[in-house]
């Protein structure tokens, strides 16, 4: 199966690979997936005092689509408010990257990672975590 040009571009030039300070109260970390499933994503956001995502970083173990989905997610997260970030839907990632059906789970994982990072940040700020619906797409 051939990858789309956008996936290849993110794979070759991943945006925002790296690590933020996990211990900081301004940083939320989401770690989703499992090694035995062949993909693990770690997505981190750094939120400034106005509630805007000032920085986002990722590291991903996975196929090209998984790497591209998380790279794209960090691109989209930067500059967004936390609330707007929560609204990112996996299907937008699918569309942007032209992922085939067998790779939809990569986008789901990216959405899960965004939500997990936001929740980690919220808990650090003394807020309630957002209820997450269990993703049904595998």
């Amino acid at each position, binding site marked *: *199966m051939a*990858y789309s040009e956008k996936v*290849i571009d993110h*794979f070759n030039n*991943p945006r925002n*690979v790296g*690590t933020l300070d996990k211990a900081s109260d301004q940083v939320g970390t989401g*770690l*989703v*997936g*499992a*090694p*035995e*499933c*062949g*993909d*693990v*994503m*770690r997505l981190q956001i750094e939120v400034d005092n106005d509630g805007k995502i000032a920085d986002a970083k990722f*590291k*991903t*173990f*996975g*196929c*090209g*689509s*998984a*790497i591209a989905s998380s790279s794209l997610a960090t691109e989209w997260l930067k500059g967004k408010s936390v609330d707007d970030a929560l609204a990112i839907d996996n299907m937008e990632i699918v569309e942007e990257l032209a992922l085939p059906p*067998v*790779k939809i*789970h990569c986008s*789901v*994982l990216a959405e*899960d990672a965004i939500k*997990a990072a936001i929740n980690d940040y919220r808990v650090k700020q003394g807020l309630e975590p957002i209820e997450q619906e269990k*993703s049904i797409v*595998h």
Partner: protein
Amino acid sequence: MKLPIYLDNNATTKVDPRVFETMTPFFLETFGNAASRNHSFGWSAEEAVDYAREQIAKLIGANEKEIIFTSGATESNNLALKGVFEMYARKGNHIITAATEHKAVLDACAHLEKQGAEVTYLPVQGNGMIDLEVLKSSIKDNTILVSIMYGNNELGVLQQIQEIGAMCKENGVLFHSDATQAVGKIPVDVIKDNIDLMSFTAHKMYGPKGVGALYVRRKNPRVKVTAQLDGGGHERGMRSGTLNVPGIVGFGRACEIAIAEMDKDAAHTSRLRDKLETELLKLEESYLNGNKDSRLPHTTNISFKHVEGEGLMIGIKDIAVSSGSACTSASLEPSYVLKSLGLDDELAHSSLRFGLSRFSTEEEVDFTIKTVTEAVNKLRDMSPLWEMFKEGIDLKTIEWTDH
């Protein structure tokens, strides 16, 4: 050097130009049906098929009457298993095979289980080898067939075929071997190896796709299989269908070349394979899969821990290889062969298989070493698992979210 580089020769090989040249007249000039008994077109085709049959038989130490042409090893495996099961139904219904067999064998066995067969799937050891003691103790009064592959398509691991053949003979059980990966690459002799039925195919040994053979022993013992296709009764009634004459001629030529050049090919591929393997195993946390001391000369399978195989393949897009990862399959299950070695799923997802050929060059191997090394390092810099490993975090202690 031309890109991309082909290092997936366990999947299929390029047709040797000499084979191709031998085949061409059989499309445009000698195009007769080998079963046409009453004109020269048919006779010429039959003659060519007979000659090919001899070349093929010679490569495996068989008699030409023992070669049944098929469409490939998938069909040969199906014919062997289903054909023996039906033919020897009165003798018993128990078949022994192994967990690392090709799907064509495993799925044929699953099919037979629905028809009342009892199938034992032998486990393999960590190095991919079958434990002969376990095999021995699995043979029962109602066992009719043992089907164990010669060389494994993912790992290259060679089973102890001679010992298994002898054990089967001693116990009066038929022995089938899927020798698809081995024939033409290493010496295979059905007499020495005590093989009763053997599947192989042209396209893994520089011949064309869509033509294969089943060796069916005629003496000590005389073996028969029930035909699986109804029709004109070709191939001594065991496989109906007009013969693929150009394919068979090419198959024959490929065998002839293999007889002449096997030693040279094996020396060439194993030297390059060893170089590739040695260099790639210098990468931290990289592991060889399968028994290093008993395997095909042209194959190696390596896991690069904390890097996902399919992602790695994009990183080395100028090199054609295979991965044990199966990120595309609905089940997300990695290779069952690697898992049956006891590899954990992550390592199975992290594997690449390299298969060299007589056409592989040193330059290609050097390029591959460099490209794979760079891609592994780049992906590890991107891998959260690698970061955790480097921080000394035991990944087993983390509670992963399954998805």
